[in-house]
């Protein structure tokens, strides 16, 4: 029996889909059998970020309504044998997928895969309920902005009310130099407010945008900082105690970069 992990945030645009794609891919790179499930019905993105858009024939709504078998809707990733995607429907709306149907599908996926990564839509309405229903664990993604932290706090409260065992936190898109100048919330501030275990800190990295536009998750480009962060997150999910990249390390990294440039 596998484990279902929902990636959620409350606020939109903080990097749920990017995180889902990268964590899913990183787990597959570590040899796990992984299925990513997109629950953002009507606004599907995960297939685009993964570069699998052109392979979609059936989607999760077809599975829920019995129009196809679950296996028919699963899309095998072109790069990894153990990585699959269950895409969302683009033409329906959130209400087309019921909480019960979603729980059933997640349960069946769990029996076939080591990890089921559920990409949650923004918001706290029906789509959110559907996404968290079958999950054993939750990962809350936030960015170092007041609004994102506020929404994350709200979502954590809702997850706790659903008796989700303590969610984990990913702080995405941190800019070390802005934190240093006091223009951005720092990691400790965020962790103090949200009082959650930190699963990882992902620095702001142009490579992430570039990779997403090419349909290739960042984790596959080995030298980017964000890639390393996501691979560390995947290892922590597997129970590997990888030390967190802290800001000092980041500063060290940038110093090293500057040194490299200076040498050139």
């Amino acid at each position, binding site marked *: 029996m596998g484990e279902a992990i929902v990636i959620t945030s409350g606020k939109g645009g903080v990097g749920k889909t990017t995180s889902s794609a990268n964590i899913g891919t990183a787990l597959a790179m570590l040899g796990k059998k992984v299925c990513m499930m997109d629950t953002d019905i009507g606004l599907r993105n995960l297939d685009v970020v993964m570069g699998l858009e052109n392979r979609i024939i059936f989607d999760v709504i077809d599975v829920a309504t019995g129009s196809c078998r679950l296996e028919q809707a699963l899309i095998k990733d072109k790069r990894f044998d153990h990585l699959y995607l269950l895409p969302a429907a683009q033409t329906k709306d959130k209400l087309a997928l019921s909480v019960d149907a979603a729980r059933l599908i997640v349960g069946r996926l769990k029996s076939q895969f080591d990890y089921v990564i559920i990409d949650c839509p923004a918001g706290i309405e029906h789509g959110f309920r559907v996404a968290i229903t079958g999950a054993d664990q939750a990962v809350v993604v936030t960015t170092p902005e007041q609004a994102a932290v*506020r*929404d994350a*706090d*709200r979502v*954590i*409260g*809702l997850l*706790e009310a659903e008796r989700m065992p303590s969610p984990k936190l990913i702080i995405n898109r941190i800019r070390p130099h802005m934190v240093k100048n006091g223009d951005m919330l720092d990691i400790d501030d965020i962790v*103090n*407010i*949200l*009082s959650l275990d930190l699963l990882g800190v992902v620095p702001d990295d142009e490579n992430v945008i570039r990779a997403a536009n090419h349909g290739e998750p960042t984790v596959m480009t080995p030298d980017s900082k964000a890639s390393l962060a996501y691979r560390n997150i995947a290892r922590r999910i597997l129970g590997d105690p990888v030390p967190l990249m802290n800001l000092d390390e980041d500063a060290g990294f940038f110093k090293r970069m500057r040194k490299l440039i200076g040498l050139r």
Partner: protein
Amino acid sequence: MPDSASMPTDGERRQLVAVKGIRNGLLFSIAEDAAFAEVYSELQETLQGHGRKSEAKGAVSAYVDFGDRILSEEEDLAVRALFSGLRTLSLGGLDGAPERRGFRPREPYVYKGTVRSGQIVEHDGDIVIIGDVNPGGQLIASGDVYVMGYLRGSAHAGAGGDDRAIIAATYFDPLQVRIASVLRRSPGASTSPAEMEFAYLDGEQMAVDRMSVLGQYRARLHATRAVL
């Protein structure tokens, strides 16, 4: 006999139990300064009389007002036993008429954990939070609010109109505090939060002071009326 001389005779006997009809049922007002045994026997008589007269079954709520008398556990049980034997009355409470209960202190509500954005902790009485109150979290108490942690959200003490209520926190950095009907917003750009402070009403004005002077504030209130 000197003993019998000091015993009150029927004629001069003071009424120890007064029965009054109130909106919610019957109110039994008990004299505060009489011995419990006397009060008990008179209450027993009164109730027996009532039982004979009334024919309604269990429809009427009875409230007993002991004033400032504090009942021991046995006394409390004895009084309850008196009422439980009756079919015509059901005991509503031993704290007086239901309206009066609003002015008595209630059990504090202790919440352990973080009060997060969108969550509301509401209690008729004092609220104690062992944890943080995050921005967007809300506390509403008819009594005091105590936060053993960060107060970053909103707190309303004395929500029923009690202007003696206070709001205290280990780290006092709220978005909004309200006591009775007086509201105060945070000054905006938050510096480091004040440690161990509490908000109280000084007349119509809200004031914030160090926790160490809370005792003095309480003592000042005590001079005029009873304190929780």
